[in-house]
C-alpha cells in the first residue's frame, strides 16, 4: 500500500516530553471514551511553553490541528508512559511525527495504538523546516519533499512497525495475522 502524507508541518525542538504533548492535568480524560478522546485532541501539544512556541498546534477553541505532520529534534515523547500522548496527537489529526529520534515508550505507543507513524529523519529537519512549510513524505521511498525549496531529504524506513500502524494498531494487526482470535 503506497503511502504519501502531505501537508503543512509544525516544528518543535529537542526533548519534547509527554507533559508538553498532553499536560498532566488532562490525564483525567479516558482515551477509550469517544467524547474524551476528542477532547484530548484539543489539548495536543498545549504544554509547549508560549515563550518558545508562539503558534499553538491546535488553535484555541478547536478540536483538530491544521498540521498533519509534526517535525521534531531528538528524544521526542520522552517522559511518562502515558498513551494519552500519541492518542491526543492522533485525535488532533496528526498522521506523522518526523523526529531525529524518539523516546522508547512513545514510539511503542504510536505503534500499539496505530494513531500515527513515528518516522526518524536522517537530517536535523527541525532546523531546516519551519512551522507552516508544506512537505510530502513518501513512506515507501523514504523521501521527504519540501514544496517551497524543491529539496528532498531522506528518512529511515519504518521496517516491521509500518504494517502494524497500517493495520490500525497492535490488536488489529494481531487479529489479521491470527495471533489472537477475532
Amino acid at each position, binding site marked *: 500500500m503506497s503511502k504519501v502524507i502531505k501537508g503543512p508541518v509544525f516544528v518543535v525542538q529537542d526533548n519534547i516530553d509527554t*507533559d508538553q504533548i498532553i499536560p498532566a492535568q488532562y490525564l483525567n480524560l*479516558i482515551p477509550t471514551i469517544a467524547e474524551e478522546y476528542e477532547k484530548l485532541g484539543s489539548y495536543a501539544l498545549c504544554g509547549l511553553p508560549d515563550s518558545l512556541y508562539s503558534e499553538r498546534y491546535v488553535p484555541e477553541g478547536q478540536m483538530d490541528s491544521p498540521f498533519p505532520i509534526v517535525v521534531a529534534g531528538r528524544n521526542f515523547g520522552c517522559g511518562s508512559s502515558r498513551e494519552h500522548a500519541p492518542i491526543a496527537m492522533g485525535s488532533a489529526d496528526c498522521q506523522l511525527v518526523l523526529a531525529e529520534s524518539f523516546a*522508547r515508550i512513545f514510539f511503542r505507543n504510536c505503534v500499539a495504538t496505530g494513531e500515527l507513524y513515528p518516522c526518524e529523519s536522517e537530517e536535523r529537519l527541525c532546523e531546516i523546516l519551519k512551522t507552516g512549510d508544506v512537505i510530502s513524505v513518501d513512506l515507501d521511498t523514504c523521501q521527504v519533499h519540501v514544496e517551497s525549496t524543491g529539496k528532498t531529504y531522506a528518512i529511515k524506513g519504518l521496517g516491521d512497525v509500518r504494517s502494524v500502524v497500517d493495520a490500525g494498531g497492535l490488536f488489529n494487526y494481531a487479529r489479521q495475522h491470527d495471533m489472537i482470535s477475532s
Partner: protein
Amino acid sequence: MMTLTEKILARAAGKAQVKAGDNVWVKADTLMTHDVCGPGTIGVFKREFGEHARVWDKERIVIIPDHYIFTADSRSNRNVDILRDFVREQGLKYFYDVIDDPEGKWVFNPAQGLLKKQYGSQYAGVCHTALAQRGHTRPGEVLFGTDSHTCMAGAFNQFATGIGNTDAGFVMGTGKLLIKVPETMHFRLEGSLQPGVMAKDVILHIIGEIGFDGATYRAMQFDGEGARSLSVDDRMTVANMAIEAGGKNGIFEFDEKTEAYVRHRTETNGTRSEYEPVERDASENFFSEHVIDLDKLEPTVACHPDPGNRRLARELSDLGLDRAYIGSCTGGKTSDFIAFAEVIRGKSVVIDTFGVPATPEIVDELKSTMWDGTSVWQIMTDAGVQMTENAGCSACLGGPVDTFGRMNKPLKCISATNRNFPGRMGHKESQVFLASPATVAASALTGKVTDPRDL
C-alpha cells in the same frame, strides 16, 4: 553469557538463551496499573476482548490508585470508582482502594483541607513504592506497569518496565507481551557515598554523563561493591530514574539486602514468597562499560529543563528559588525524609516547602520515629515544612490545579522528584531543579541552591 536482563527475559520467554535485539514473547509475572492509566487500560481490554472477558490471572494484576486522588476534580474521583467497579467485576485480589467500602464512591472533601488524611485502611500510596512495601516485587520476575517509573522495581533484581494502555490491555487479556531484548549498559559502582552525598546524586551524575537519551532502548545494569553498599531504598532511587536517561529498565544484583527486604514484605503481606533471582554470568555482552567512583561524587543538581542538564550544587549557589518539594516514588521514602530532617532540624525554611510522603506507611514511620522525644514529622513541621498525610503522587506531576504543592505560577522549585521537563510540576513556564533530599533541605533553608555540606 547473558546479562541480568537477558537472563530474566530468556526465562520468561521459555528459552535457554536470548540476546540483545531478539524479539520475544515473555510471560508477565505481575501487571500494575493506577488511576491515570487503569481506566484506559480497562477500556482497551473490554474493547478488544469483549464486555464479558475475564483477565488472564486474578492474582497477578495489582491496581494502585495514587495519582489524582486528593482533588475535587470529579473526573479524577470517577476514575478511582472505575477501578473499583472493575476489581469487583473481575474478583481481583490486589486493589489498594482509597476508601474501605467496596460498594462506595470516592469523593474528596476539600473542606477538610489538604493536610489531614482522607483515605481508608487499604490505601497504599505511590504505586512503585507501594508495590515494594506490599510485597509485589520479586527477584528474577517480569513486572509490567502502565507507568514509566515501573523501572524502580529493578532495585530488586527484577525486569520491570513501563508500558502504554494498549500493551497493558493486551497483557491483561493474555499475560504476555512481545518485547525486544534491550542491549545492556554496564555501570560498575565502586567505593561508597561520602557524607552529604545521596543515591539521587549517583543517578543524576550518571544521567548527566550519558545524556537524557543516553540509555534509550537499553537496560542499565548497576553492580559492583558500590552497588552492594547502597541500601534497598537507595537502589530504588537509582533504578527509578533509568527512564530519565531513556532506559527500558534498570537492574541491580541480588544480595542479602534484597533477600531480607523481600522476605519481610512478602511475609507481612501474605503475598507469593517463592522466587528465583538471577546471578551474573562470568562473561556478559555489554553495549558499554562505565565505572562510577562513589567516593568522588558530590551533591548534584539537574537543572531545568531536562534531567540530563547536570551541574554541581556548589556551582549554583547564586540561583535563587521560590519553593522546595520533597516527595514522590524516588524521593518520598522514609530514608529521604530522615536525610531531609537531619539537615533542617532546629532551623527554619525560608521558602515555601512541601513534604509529601510516598505512602501511608511512611507517614506512620515519620510520626513514630523519635529523636530526643520529638517525631521526625514534628521536626519537619517545626521547621516550617508543610507536611501532608495524604500520601501520593501529588505535585510531582502537577496534576489537577487544586493539587497540594502544585505550581500554579511560573516559579522556580528545587525538588527531590525525578522529572523536570517544562510544566512537569504545574505551570508550563515554571522551572524545576532536581536534587537529593539533603540538597533540597539545605536549599530550603537558604532560598538558593545550596550544597548540604556547606551548612
